[in-house]
């Protein structure tokens, strides 16, 4: 089943500071969407509002057609999972323990993990390639493995929509690519809509179907990679001069950009 998520005429505040006003966006098919934009543009705030971590001061977020604020947080968590940027967990927790936490929204106060929970956890561990590591403690994992363990937790929630806030920060390029490829595989295998905030423009261009450019709390561009990933938009978005080029490797073509000089901001 495909999940739909939309935000209508929303005002987002961070404390008393206005981040965004009159935001409207729609996600209605399983696709990989990247939100790009400069620091402080309101990307993460937007992601938080979509993930029910931040209540819009005005406007509404709809999950599968229903007002998210009117749903219980457990009900939301069964359809949508969010991974924040900075995560922390007790070091003695095992990978499997963390994946088990993903079943919390399905459990009542006293219920034990049932057969369907076990299946969801095994599926999450298998699809993130962590079956052999499931009894390792989180403190013994590398950054990339740890991020996969968190992804397994999010997958155990059996979400239709997965929100990721800068999932590749703190990872080296090997783990960055590995994680992006994993996200791509998960999207294809489970038909999940993935919405993520990304800093690396080339990853965004290569692994997304749709790009949303956010600047000063407003949507500057929203469309396919071909539409958004163009010189004029990127230059205006980041106030830098860029060259956008098409690279080919092993018979595939990717868009890539090279920012070479910053421009004066007004």
């Amino acid at each position, binding site marked *: 089943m495909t999940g739909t998520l939309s935000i209508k005429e929303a005002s987002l505040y961070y404390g008393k500071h206005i981040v965004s006003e009159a935001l409207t966006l729609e996600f209605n098919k399983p696709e990989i969407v990247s939100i790009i934009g400069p620091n402080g543009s309101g990307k993460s705030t937007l992601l*938080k509002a979509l993930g029910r971590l931040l209540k819009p001061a005005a406007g509404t977020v709809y999950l599968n057609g229903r007002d998210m604020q009117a749903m219980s*947080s457990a009900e939301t*968590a069964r359809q949508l999972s969010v991974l924040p940027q900075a*995560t922390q967990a007790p070091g003695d927790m095992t990978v499997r323990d963390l994946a088990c*936490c993903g079943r919390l929204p399905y459990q009542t106060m*006293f219920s034990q993990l049932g057969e369907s929970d*076990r299946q969801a956890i095994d599926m999450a561990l298998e699809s993130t390639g962590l079956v052999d590591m499931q*009894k390792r403690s989180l403190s013994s994992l590398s950054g990339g493995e740890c991020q996969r363990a968190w992804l397994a937790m999010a997958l155990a929630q059996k979400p239709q929509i997965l929100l990721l806030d800068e999932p590749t920060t703190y990872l080296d390029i090997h783990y960055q690519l590995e994680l992006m490829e994993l996200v791509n595989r998960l999207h294809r295998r489970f038909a999940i809509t993935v919405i993520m905030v990304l800093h690396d423009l080339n990853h965004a261009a290569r692994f997304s179907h749709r790009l949303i450019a956010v600047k000063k709390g407003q949507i500057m561009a929203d469309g396919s990679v071909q539409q958004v990933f163009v010189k004029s938009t990127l230059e205006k978005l980041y106030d830098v001069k860029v060259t956008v080029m098409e690279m080919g490797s092993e018979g595939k073509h990717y868009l890539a950009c090279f920012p070479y000089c910053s421009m004066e901001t007004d």
Partner: protein
Amino acid sequence: MEQLISQQSVINDKRSVRRQLTLFIGAALLLLAMGIGIAAGAVPITLHEIWGTLLGTANTENYRIINYLRIPRVLCGVMVGANLALSGCILQGILRNPLADPGIIGVTAGAGLAAMALMLIAPEFTSLVPFAAFGGALVAVIIVFLLAWENGINPLRLILAGVAVAAFFGGGTTALSVFFSDRIQGTVTWLAGGFSGSSWQHVYMIIPYSIVGILASLCSCRKLNALQLGDEVAASLGVNVQRSRGLLVALAALLAASAVSVAGLLGFVGLIVPHIMRLLVGSDFEYLLPVSALFGAILVVGADTAARTIFSPVEVPVGIFLSFLGAPFFLYLLKRRMKH
């Protein structure tokens, strides 16, 4: 599928064996500590007499000692220890601070000031000290709560507000002891903490809080586990973070306040016990909470028995005993943390 399940059971075997074992040994040790606590003392008592008293068949001279002195004292120790350990365990979890204990939310300072004020200003009402301590503890916690509240409770702000309130109330306690320096003698024992006057009345005072507190905290282990992963992850797993944290701090406050009202200012139980248990069984609250309660009870009952028998006929307040045990351990923890 069957194969998968058996494979998993092997995987978590070692850890779950250690957890079960800790629980089992804890239960056995508690029974042993309670038995020794009833038997040992100025008048030694045989196991046979205890058994007889419990069954209501004995009619020995020692019946009164067992029934009116030793049993209530041991029961108070069990519940005070369990409550303090649970309170510390919950606070360390939700404040994500390994050095948190019931004192950090103002419980100790509030109870201390209220009890001192009553004993010094109106000594004729000394029998009401437990109620005053309980009230004082709650007032202090409420002040800390109000200071720390801003669209919910922020753990760091709670700790800072707790430190400030504790300093303020502590100043009040010092001021009282300066102004009433002639009457201070009687209050010293209470401040040191102990069970020398424990009676059935004290048991009845603390027992509702222990029962409600133990049940409520065991029901919250999933929420505590989720909160350990950070506010945002907990929220994304369907936990109402602010409400759960508020209720859990209130629960920890009630547990600690009821313990302090019965036993005076007992330090360190709420700090060390959850810490050692975390090293033994890990940070899953489903196991951490019950074993903390068990070993908290064992520690307090054991320490109380030791405090009143080792230097017999002099009875050392158990609070002093625990501090001598707790402070070095605290330093050891700090040193270990610095190494990592």
